[in-house]
């Protein structure tokens, strides 16, 4: 079976810190935080007011009204990021390529906002019917389906829902499909649009959302900040990408997964370590090769200490030579899109020789005693990096990327 090197030839992002990749990267490089008071939902009844929202999003800038009617916001984000990635890759579609291309998307909550709106109709307004497009808008695979229709991609296409690891699992599976020669091109990533009162109330009840901002690895961290958006990548065999003269933005070189098998919400450092080791093994890399880790770094008490311990367990003394940052401090925790947004940040960091910071960092924490690139991006030539995603439910996924 073929064993291709896998090139990233296109990246698209829509997020709270940029509605395209150039805005996104400029924000990461500047350490600009996209956490603001939420505008798209009424937060009057919530204990938190802030989120990382795509600013002034207007679907009519991207879609005809009739088409937008059929798509929840999360599916719209998927297509917007997919369009940018495909345009950047300069793909010339042929019937053969369409048949040999695949799509893997990640989403945690899918179109739950559309579901929430339907439940308001039923239970609050006392109406006896919900909108007939509720089901096709809610289904978590809607992003993948709309991407397939957008580009006419007819090869293997599916969606992975593993909470906060969804997009990393999606990119990893797509990477393996391309590596093994099962597809000639994969469009993969994640999308999420989590801002509706019903969903936010559920997060509020878990008491893991910060009342002010996201401060990963800082001693005074007070929880996560929810985000939204999407990131998609075009993955191709490296030789094929070079043959057609495509710009290569980096490579995915390894993918590792694990399950904690311990607790439905409490993370385990052993599970996180196993996923990082699996990614290194898949990439054929020694731990000492890694120069940067884009951490899961949610800013919760539980994650950041556990992740630090996991990194120390995997890297030993090399952990003190690694740069580690959580870009969630800027784009928020976009759940099922997070892993793709962070893989995009990692690819740009390697390519541009600039490691994005952990923003909002104010107090060192002995439990998180890594070099977390506090507040200011750092120039550094790094060849290999990891991008970590650890989900509620203990399902972990880690990508290894190369410059």
């Amino acid at each position: 079976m073929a064993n291709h090197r896998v090139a990233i030839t296109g990246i698209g992002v829509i997020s709270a810190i940029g509605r395209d990749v150039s805005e996104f990267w400029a924000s990461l490089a500047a350490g600009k935080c996209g956490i603001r008071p939420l505008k798209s939902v009424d937060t009057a009844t919530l204990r938190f007011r802030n989120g990382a929202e795509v600013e002034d999003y207007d679907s009519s800038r991207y879609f005809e009204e009739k088409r937008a009617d059929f798509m929840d916001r999360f599916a719209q984000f998927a297509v917007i990021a997919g369009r940018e990635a495909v345009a950047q890759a300069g793909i010339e579609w042929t019937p053969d390529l369409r048949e040999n291309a695949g799509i893997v998307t990640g989403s945690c909550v899918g179109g739950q906002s559309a579901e929430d709106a339907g439940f308001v109709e039923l239970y609050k307004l006392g109406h006896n019917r919900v909108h007939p497009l509720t089901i096709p808008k809610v289904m978590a695979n809607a992003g993948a389906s709309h991407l397939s229709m957008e580009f006419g991609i007819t090869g293997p296409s599916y969606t992975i829902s593993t909470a906060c690891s969804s997009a990393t699992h999606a990119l990893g599976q797509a990477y393996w499909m391309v590596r093994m020669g099962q597809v000639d091109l994969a469009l993969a990533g994640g999308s999420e649009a989590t801002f509706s009162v019903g969903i936010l109330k559920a997060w509020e009840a878990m008491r893991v959302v910060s009342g002010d901002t996201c401060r990963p690895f800082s001693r005074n961290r007070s929880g996560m900040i929810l985000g939204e958006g999407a990131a998609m990548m075009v993955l191709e065999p490296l030789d094929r990408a070079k043959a057609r003269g495509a710009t290569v933005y980096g490579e995915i070189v390894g993918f590792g997964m694990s399950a904690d098998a311990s607790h439905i919400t409490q993370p385990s450092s052993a599970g996180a370590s196993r996923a990082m080791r699996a990614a290194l093994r898949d990439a054929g890399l020694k731990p000492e090769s890694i120069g940067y880790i884009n951490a899961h770094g949610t800013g919760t008490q539980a994650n950041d200490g556990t992740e630090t311990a996991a990194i120390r367990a995997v890297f030993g003394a090399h952990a003190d030579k690694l740069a580690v940052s959580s870009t969630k401090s800027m784009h928020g925790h976009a759940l099922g899109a997070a892993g793709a947004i962070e893989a995009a940040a990692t690819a740009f960091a390697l390519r541009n020789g600039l490691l994005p910071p952990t923003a909002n960092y104010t107090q060192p924490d002995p439990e998180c005693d890594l070099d977390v690139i506090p507040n200011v991006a750092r120039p550094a030539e790094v060849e290999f990096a990891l991008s970590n995603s650890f989900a509620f439910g203990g399902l972990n996924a880690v990508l290894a990327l190369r410059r």
Partner: protein
Amino acid sequence: MPDDPLTQRVFSVIAATQRIPFDKITIDGKFAELGIDSMDGVNILFGLENEFDITIPDEAAKQIRDVRQMVEGVSRLVSEKEAADPASAVN
């Protein structure tokens, strides 16, 4: 069985949420001894908010490590509620 009705109600919520016998719970019980982890704690707080019609702030919730702190916290919030709205003191 504690004498104070409020303490009894807090114990009842803990017992029901944790699915443990009421008489296993004591005012000096530590969460770790009762097998209460952080998600269990959040579950109990939800039960207490409903039982007493109070709102327990996140910051206060993070400090609670044992049954006594939980009883004291609920007692304080119930007193504050009654001070703000004397009519609610009926139950």
